[in-house]
């Protein structure tokens, strides 16, 4: 059983996401989702020419399991809950399908299941996570763009990387000047 006080979440390294859709279909299979329901969805941004150079990024959109989930706040029947480890869960028995949560979600990550007439979202593969496994999207991400971990640690790593890049860049400029 994992320590529920450690708040792990899905982390994205956008430099590594190649838009391969493996996370989407892995999620479909794991949770047996019908067509139209995508708990994780890869959104393409661009391509766009900026200063003569083309840019394109891929962002997997999914429930962020927010600290203060706006969906939870607006649910009129208390169908949305937050576990002590931070995972936001949807109770399909209680849900009345009013879609208030979908409107409240700033990421557009929540899905409406027309067959069950309920709202759904990524549950961070709690069944797997409680067994010590990673969420299925993370297991299937070929480049390591999606990871499962502690956001604080991740941010610290990013800070270090950013500083390193900054210094290297600075040296690069100096070298050019010489």
């Amino acid at each position: 059983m994992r320590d529920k006080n450690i708040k792990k979440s899905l982390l994205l390294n956008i430099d590594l996401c190649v838009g391969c859709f493996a996370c989407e279909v892995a999620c479909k299979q794991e949770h047996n989702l019908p067509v139209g329901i995508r708990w994780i969805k890869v959104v393409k941004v661009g391509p766009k020419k900026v200063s003569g150079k083309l840019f394109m990024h891929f962002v997997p959109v999914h429930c962020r399991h927010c600290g203060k989930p706006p969906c939870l706040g607006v649910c009129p029947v208390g169908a949305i809950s937050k576990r002590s480890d931070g995972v936001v869960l949807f109770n399909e028995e209680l849900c009345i399908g009013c879609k208030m949560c979908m409107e409240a979600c700033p990421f557009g990550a929540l899905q409406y299941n027309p067959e069950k007439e309920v709202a759904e979202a990524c549950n961070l593969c709690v069944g797997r996570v409680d067994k010590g496994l990673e969420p299925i999207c993370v297991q299937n991400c070929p480049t390591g763009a999606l990871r499962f971990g502690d956001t604080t640690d991740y941010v610290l790593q990013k800070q270090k990387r950013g500083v390193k890049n900054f210094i290297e860049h600075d040296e690069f400029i100096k070298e050019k000047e010489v």
Partner: protein
Amino acid sequence: MKSMTANDRIVRTMCDLCHCECGVLVHVQDGKVIKIEGDPNCPINEGHLCPKGLAAIQLLYHPDRIRYPLKRKGERGEGKWQRISWDEALDTVVIKFREVIEKYGPESVTYSWGDAAYRNSRFTKDALLFTLNAPTHLHSDAHYCFHPVLIANRLTFGHLLTSEGSPDYRNSKCIMLWGGNPVMTHPTQGRDIILGKTNGAKLVVIDPRFTEIASKADIFLQVRPGTDDALALGMLNVIINEGLYDKEFVEKWCIGFDQLKERVQAYPPQWVSKITWLAEEEIIRTARLFATSKPAATHTRMGVCMSTNTIQTVRAISILAAICGNLDIKGGNLIPNRPAGFKTRAEIVWKELTLPPELENKKVGAHEFPLLCSSESLGGNFCHPPSVIHAMMTGKPYPIKALWVLNDLLVCLEGAKETKEALGNVDFIAGSDFFMTSTMELCDIILPPCTYLEREEVVDSICTNNVIGARQKVIQPLDETRDEKEIDLEIVRRMGLKLPPHWQTLKDFNEYRVKGMGITFEDLKEKGYIGGPVSYKKYEGTGFPTPSGKVELYSSILEKYGYDPLPYYQENPETPVSTPKLAKEYPLILITGGRHVVYYHSLGRQIPWLREIMPDPNLEIHPETAERLGIKNGDWVWIEAPRGRGRIKMRAELTESVHPEVVHAPSHWWFPEVKESHHGAWESNINAIMSNDPPYDPICGATPLRGNLCRVYKADER
């Protein structure tokens, strides 16, 4: 998901829904496959799977899968079928094949090799032709795709080195990917490129499209379609004239450097810049980066294999890899090294299932393209596909009257209208496919194959050049579907023909492939995967398997056959440069065939989880061009080809991924949900407006599918 019970099991096997052939763990509950996941112990995919592999359950249990042998009741294409027994189906095939052989000779029987389910039946299908003494093997993409790379590489180094499996991305300092997007076509290779980049490699992507992998590139060269030959020659010019090549390697291991040096003087970067639409300094910068980064890995893909100068283009790129000293070094392009004693695909097909020269030289196209088709072929035992279609239509050089078709030829082969006409002249057509496609509708008998989950075989994936593995039967074939290989052997038996003595059964065959390794097929199943040893500079002991034993910058084989022994640039036949008048009426350059990861050629459009991700055939068009034409994102548009080739509809995707003068149309589109017998094969199938007529590449017979002219205008809804 229910909890595990005593009847539950997890079977390790290997996916076959694309060339990667990833290791998978298949969860079975009460005899039913309930989950497929990547095998973390498989060196090919290391636990990951792509969408196709992850959605394989929906293929296995698809309600539209053909599960029984069928016999056509009405006219061809009328869509009326009758379920028959396997005995009746097989006996009909045998009787009809015999009839055709008696009347026209064995060369009038052919099969059209497809892919996916059928790649591993290559041996048994070839064995069938071999026992029939029939040289006519129609492999529908023999003249482009992989075989031009094989031919060009073998001309140059004797080995296949710039295709999947060879570039050692993870250890490279510079990865040069030319005309390909492995993220979409070979996901494991896409992953390795990203890992190589994470390890510090610079990534150079050369493509007319700004693809997924291009978005990660350090240098992206948006080359004008079909001018890759000029670009490669321009880079050679820079590298040779600036002395950036590996002098020691060239001195010791290459022949023809002086002639090459002279040749590339005709291609200064300033001139190449005008031809390719690339800035001169970009060409120079890329050449310098590639030459001075060591090791560098080079990968050529289909983007450079569909022009009338395909072989010389791939030759020029191969020469770049060679003279910069990147052959068979860590992080460069590695010489294949399967486990010692293992019988490779090429070994069996080329050494054991090749007919005597007088028969091999009867292949359709052997005279025109001897390096593709004849007894001296460097590319495999194939005919020239467009020439086979023409032979079906005209009876020349001989009639082809019986066909066993394993792919959707109308969707997969350029010149769909001619292909349909050609099939109309074939007396008997047997078909094998998972689903009722436009081509299956034209068959007389259908023999339903099973998926990879229902059969077993030895696997040597082309996405790794040293690992082999075992495909294990996870469940019994559904209903009356059968292992394709078993069907082949049964037909051989019923025709009273003799198989090679050492493999009378599939079991024999599996054993035969691994016997030289001192193991049994059971041992391989037990182990899962076996890799050959990693070693470098293997050529130092053996030389290169070319006539001179060296890398032939100046090709002695091309010289012998009367081709230019050195690479050159040649404009495609239908471009704004070669046909400026036509370009006034058809102002856009049409490139075709970019893939999406959810589909494998024509397979997958009926799989719900996959179709959801890419529901429509999207024509990539630049927003400025679209605006000028009054086209909005998502509009259905006509794409019309010149010279009466007709028009098809696709959905406009406004994107800056293409140059304003270029549009890109994906290939292989059909609509399984269209129930009429053509299944939408004439609506959005780009091959319906592509020609299979000459001019061809003079060496391999490739047709120019990436860089023709077209015009685009708004259509009504689909």
